[in-house]
């Protein structure tokens, strides 16, 4: 379980200081998929960076299963919007990058072996096994993002952080990737914190959709999505889906009009 309590993050000091996040509160239970939506600049990426341990909060507490988060760790995997595969490594080496680091520090024997096998299994599952020796530049955008997801899952993290991972993909690939993500989550019970601009995507993927407000960034609404799983293409057409989508959009527009002074 991920808990954020009154998390604030200020960039810079003095008159130029930017409060990217203020008193952000959020709880993500184990196995849950929570989507963060909000207008540009409301601190979504900042929040993910804090959870990932890439930055430290100015104040507040971040706990993962009760343990304070201070630095990056194998318990969190992250997928970025832009291409972040290492271009000089093959798909398989990219996916095993995290494992290879731990190997040089301490050999875990059987556990390491199982994790490597897990990598190959994941590659197989997302259809990248035939491309395991290809370099990222040889893959399509969708394949590259699939490889990024596999890389993030390779160390069996407790939570998967995704920052607009499908934002740069075309509509069709995007839909494919959403279904794939849901399939993987269902299989491995992965907890996911997913940032997106796309309300439809958020409602389709999430168990909950959290709406954020800018200046200063914080969560203002938390909409539950009680739509049964597995979800498929037709889910989007259901009146229930549309109703929730409408609800989230209402919160979003409301958050934008009530800009704080």
């Amino acid at each position, binding site marked *: 379980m991920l808990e954020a309590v009154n998390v604030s993050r200020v960039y810079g000091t003095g008159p130029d200081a930017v409060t990217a996040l203020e008193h952000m509160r959020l709880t993500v239970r184990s196995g849950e998929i929570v989507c963060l939506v909000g207008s540009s600049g409301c601190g979504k990426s900042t929040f993910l960076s804090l959870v990932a341990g*890439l930055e430290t909060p100015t104040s507040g507490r971040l706990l993962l299963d009760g343990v304070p988060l201070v630095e*990056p760790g*194998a318990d969190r995997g992250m997928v970025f919007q832009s291409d972040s595969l290492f*271009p000089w490594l093959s798909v398989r080496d990219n996916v095993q990058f995290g494992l290879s*680091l731990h190997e040089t520090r301490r050999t875990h024997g059987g556990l390491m072996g199982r994790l490597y096998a897990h990598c190959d299994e994941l590659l197989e599952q997302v259809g990248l096994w035939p491309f395991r020796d290809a370099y990222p*530049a*040889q*893959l399509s955008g969708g394949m590259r993002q699939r490889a990024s997801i596999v890389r993030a899952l390779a*160390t069996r993290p407790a939570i998967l952080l995704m920052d607009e991972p499908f934002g740069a993909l075309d509509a069709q690939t995007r839909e494919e990737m959403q279904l794939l993500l849901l399939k993987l989550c269902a299989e491995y019970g992965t907890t996911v914190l997913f940032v997106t601009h796309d309300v439809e995507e958020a409602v389709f993927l999430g168990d909950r959709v959290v709406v954020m407000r800018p200046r200063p960034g914080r969560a203002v609404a938390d909409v539950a999505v009680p739509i049964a799983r597995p979800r498929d293409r037709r889910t989007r057409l259901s009146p229930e889906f549309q109703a929730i989508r409408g609800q989230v959009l209402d919160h979003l527009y409301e958050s934008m009009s009530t800009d704080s002074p």
Partner: protein
Amino acid sequence: MERARLKRASLFALREPIPRRVALAVTVGVFATLAVAWVVLSYGGFVRPLFLPTPTAVLERAVFLYREEILVRDIWISNVRVFSGFLMAMVVAIPLGMLAGNLPIFAAAVNPFMGFIRYMPVPAFIPLLVLYAGIDEAPKILLIFIGTAVQMTIMVGDVTRRVQPELIRAAMVLGADSREIFRKVIWRGSLPGIVDVMRINLGFAWTYLVVAELVAASEGMGFRILRSQRFLQTDTIFLYILLIGLLGILFDFAFRQLHRFAFPWIRERVRG
């Protein structure tokens, strides 16, 4: 017809690749034009041999110097000097550049200092080098070292700084510590750029050769050029300048091949 027109126009299209054969023809054309100009001007008697020796004279010089066992010796010793200085510069510049490019504390230490020496004329160091290092090989090698190390450090710093921040963040999230990020991300990611920097700087190193061999040399390509000037042996000067040019083409080719074979992941990008 439309197609043919497009094809002709595309030879001058910005950043559009042109057929290999065309590129080769243009390259060969440039050299051929120069060669023809040389032949016509020298054999035609348009320019006095003192200013422009004939190709025959240059070749005869080459044969003569080869027979006297001077030519190979000169080429060898100059290569030793250039590569010694160049390798020393590499050993210093690559780690220093990487540190200065990625750790602000090293940037603060290194960059202003490099800026300070960067504009100093390298030949100005000759008297000091002779004073400190004598008149053997040391001052010549040191001069080439000074000439290349500074630019190289700055350029390596730039290249390593250009590794995408996303890759560094990705590695951090995957649990890499600073040392692993240096080794597995910054080093690996900037290696092609570093090889390019080396290719460019090897050229700089050669341009310092004549200056370096001003220092009490008795052999070497730069020395031979300087001495030939005193004896008005223009043919020798031409021979050595052309030889240095040829060596340049050779080394450039070697670096480009290294790039092609060592970094297949870049080449694929073009296709994909």
